[in-house]
């Protein structure tokens, strides 16, 4: 591909996506169907703008790899371990039962037995990209159906490895005998690579990430994130394993690191674009030639496959105790054939098991079955789910609240006091901090601190701003505080904001940004020390405390009084914020009027006399 056609292709993809996806979403079909249709339209059987569908599909599979990495980031080893039962139970049952039944059907309809077995294995797999994207679009991943669906997909990703290993064994006589034996060396290599990923991910990655974060160059951090995923994927591919599985593993290992949210938000745009490209490529690769030649056969195969898989999933979901309301969703979202089928069928053809006609027929069938899923999901959303939702149990109860109620932005000397107080009272907060050195220290004290600039919308979202209740702004930068308050007010209006403030002018600006509580960072400390000064001068502790209380109340009152004039005039606002010194004088004058009770004057005279007396001695 020369430069011109590369840019031209990129232009076509982006244009197709930008036109088709919003249209599809507006019509209620979701983004995935939009991409698929866009692929059909620009592909060889549509306008023919792009011809190299297979190469693109290969490239875009990296979107699936990034998707799995991102999912890994959400799942720390503990949570993954907790999912072992559904993965090994429901996941294994789905693959085995589906493959067995499909094999039976294949043999019954006269296929040779190894063709039937390989076809059945490939068709038993679902599309990770499709299913996860559809669940994600609907925010359904945290539901029981989402969890189970994910478990099944994860098992399938793992099952691909032995399947790929078995296919050459079935390829009778065509391949030379030496390579069809079981390859122990390959197995050892695979184990070594996985061990390398686990050990490296656990011990080496965090210091490296810290070094890179310390450069404070965001693009370098992004570059490293991509490098990490691509490197892991290549390593896995080199030993013949699923790239997606390797990326998933790397993600899981980083799920507990403080860089999780930063990695997530850096990967996000690439993941989205490449997944889109992947769906476009699937759309492009639907071979309408075969479809037109044998429309009934292909449609029958595709619909039969979807129906068969959906029924098996429905039954298994019921056996494994999924709530009845979620069974149709679970069954439909996994009912298609997946991208791994393309890979398996390719290998099967090259091992001489599949004649080319069967490969082509099955690939069209799988691609077509992928086209049905977004449509089935729309039917589920519009027709099936609303009916089932009339049953008493409210769907909200099924959702696990995975986010913390509080986000603390900035965990320096200010934020950590707040964090410690909350922590000591059993409230967990998600903490965002942008100084990597600082994070390392805090981690040693078992704080859950994440690296990143809190003023980035994607990071806030990744930190759970959509579900949190309270944001504590404690960052050490005056303007940043205001920027963050404004950003949050606009994008997460439900979130209550309390903020660290610098001075009176800053308080006014924070109030303008809808902050519901503030504290001037030096006020309480200075007041305490002022109280101490009174005590040192002979004032009783009680009286000093009362004086400090009175001062605070009066100061707050004065501040709010001045704030009432803040809106009177737009120019006035500028004058007021520029004129902090004048205001201080106002405040001090009103101190003289309000704070001088007779008792205080008596005390001032007495202590003055005491100081004078001490001086004269």
């Amino acid at each position, binding site marked *: 591909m020369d430069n011109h056609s590369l840019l031209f292709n990129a232009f076509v993809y982006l244009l197709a996506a930008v036109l088709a996806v919003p249209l599809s979403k507006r019509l209620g079909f979701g983004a995935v169907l939009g991409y698929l249709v866009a692929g059909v339209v620009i592909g060889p059987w549509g306008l023919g703008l792009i011809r190299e569908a297979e190469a693109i599909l290969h490239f875009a599979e990296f979107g699936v790899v990034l998707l799995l990495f991102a999912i890994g980031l959400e799942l720390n080893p503990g949570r993954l371990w907790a999912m072992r039962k559904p993965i090994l139970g429901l996941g294994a049952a789905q693959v085995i039962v589906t493959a067995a039944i499909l094999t039976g059907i294949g043999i019954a309809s006269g296929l040779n037995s190894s063709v039937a077995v390989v076809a059945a294995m490939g068709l038993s797999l679902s599309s990770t990209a499709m299913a996860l994207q559809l669940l994600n679009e609907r925010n359904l991943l945290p539901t029981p159906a989402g969890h189970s669906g994910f478990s099944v997909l994860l098992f399938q990703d793992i099952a691909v490895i032995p399947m790929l290993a078995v296919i050459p064994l079935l390829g009778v006589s065509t391949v030379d005998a030496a390579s069809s034996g079981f390859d122990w060396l390959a197995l050892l290599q695979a184990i070594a690579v996985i061990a390398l990923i686990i050990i490296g991910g656990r011990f080496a990655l965090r210091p490296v990430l810290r070094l890179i974060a310390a450069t404070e160059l965001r693009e370098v951090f992004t570059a490293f994130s991509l490098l990490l995923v691509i490197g892991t994927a290549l390593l896995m591919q080199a030993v013949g394993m699923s790239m997606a599985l390797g990326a998933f593993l790397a993600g899981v290992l980083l799920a507990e690191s403080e860089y999780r949210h930063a990695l997530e938000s850096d990967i996000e745009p690439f993941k989205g674009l490449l997944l889109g490209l992947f769906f476009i490529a699937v759309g492009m690769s639907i071979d309408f030639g075969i479809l037109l030649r044998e429309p009934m056969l292909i449609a029958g195969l595709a619909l039969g496959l979807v129906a068969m898989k959906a029924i098996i999933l429905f039954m298994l979901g019921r056996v494994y105790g999924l709530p009845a309301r979620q069974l149709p969703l679970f069954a439909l979202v996994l009912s298609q054939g997946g991208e791994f089928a393309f890979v398996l069928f390719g290998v099967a053809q090259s091992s001489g098991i599949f004649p080319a006609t069967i490969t082509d027929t099955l690939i069209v069938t799988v691609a077509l079955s992928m086209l049905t899923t977004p449509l089935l999901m729309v039917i589920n959303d519009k027709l099936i789910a609303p009916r089932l939702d009339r049953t008493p149990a409210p769907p909200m109860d099924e959702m696990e609240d995975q986010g913390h109620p509080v986000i603390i932005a900035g965990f320096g000397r200010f934020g950590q006091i707040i964090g410690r107080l909350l922590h000591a009272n059993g409230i967990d907060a998600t903490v965002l901090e942008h100084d990597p050195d600082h994070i390392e220290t805090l981690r040693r004290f078992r704080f859950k601190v994440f690296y990143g600039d809190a003023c980035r919308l994607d990071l806030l979202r990744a930190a759970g701003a959509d579900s949190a209740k309270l944001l504590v702004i404690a960052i050490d930068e005056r303007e940043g505080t205001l920027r963050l308050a404004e950003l949050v007010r606009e994008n997460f209006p439900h979130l209550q904001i309390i903020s660290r403030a610098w001075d009176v002018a800053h308080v006014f600006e924070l109030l303008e940004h809808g902050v519901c509580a503030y504290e001037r960072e030096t006020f309480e400390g200075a007041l305490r020390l002022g109280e101490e000064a009174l005590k040192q001068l002979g004032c009783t502790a009680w009286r000093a405390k*009362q004086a400090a*209380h*009175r001062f605070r*109340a009066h100061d707050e009152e004065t501040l709010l009084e001045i704030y009432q004039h803040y809106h009177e005039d737009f120019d006035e606002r500028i004058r007021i914020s520029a004129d902090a010194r004048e205001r201080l004088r106002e405040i001090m004058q009103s101190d003289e009027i309000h704070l001088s009770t007779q008792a205080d004057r008596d005390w001032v005279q007495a202590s003055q006399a005491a100081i004078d007396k001490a001086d004269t001695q």
Partner: protein
Amino acid sequence: MSPRGREYLGTESKIMVYCAHLSIENSVINRAMRDAVRDLPQVDFRDLHELYPDFFINTATEQALLRNADLIVFQHPIYWYAAPAIFKHFMDTVLLHGFAYGPGGTALQGKDFLLAVSTGAPAEEYGSGGIHHYPLERLMLPIEQTVRFCGMRFMPPLVVHGGHGLPADVVAAHATRYRQLLEDYRPAG
């Protein structure tokens, strides 16, 4: 404070309910009582610990509120034969010479005062033979005399005994009775 229209409407009353409890969030009876009365239009409900967590009571504000009330209610559990400490501090810093007593100290004259209290022990423990030995009325003498000293009328206290582990229906009935009492209240004269 906007003056209520008592002079014009004749029957309208203004009630200040002061309440304190060291952990109102865990209390059963006092929370039920609070929830029963605080939405009444004639009631101004003030939780002293909520308003003054550091005991810095705003004397001027509280005096203005008291001046305007017809009925003043102190609602609290009994701690060591008295109210929670913040009530005493409230009296020490608000019921001042020249306001509540002494020359010119007539702000509270003629108002009604109600004590709405809960005890941990059952009724029979208050009296000779019980662990608290004295009847509750006698233990409450200091507050009763404070009220008289300020020229207010000490109404018969509303008492609920055995506040820990009361059955839900008894709690609800008591709260309703409390609400009824305040709803039916009309200033004398």
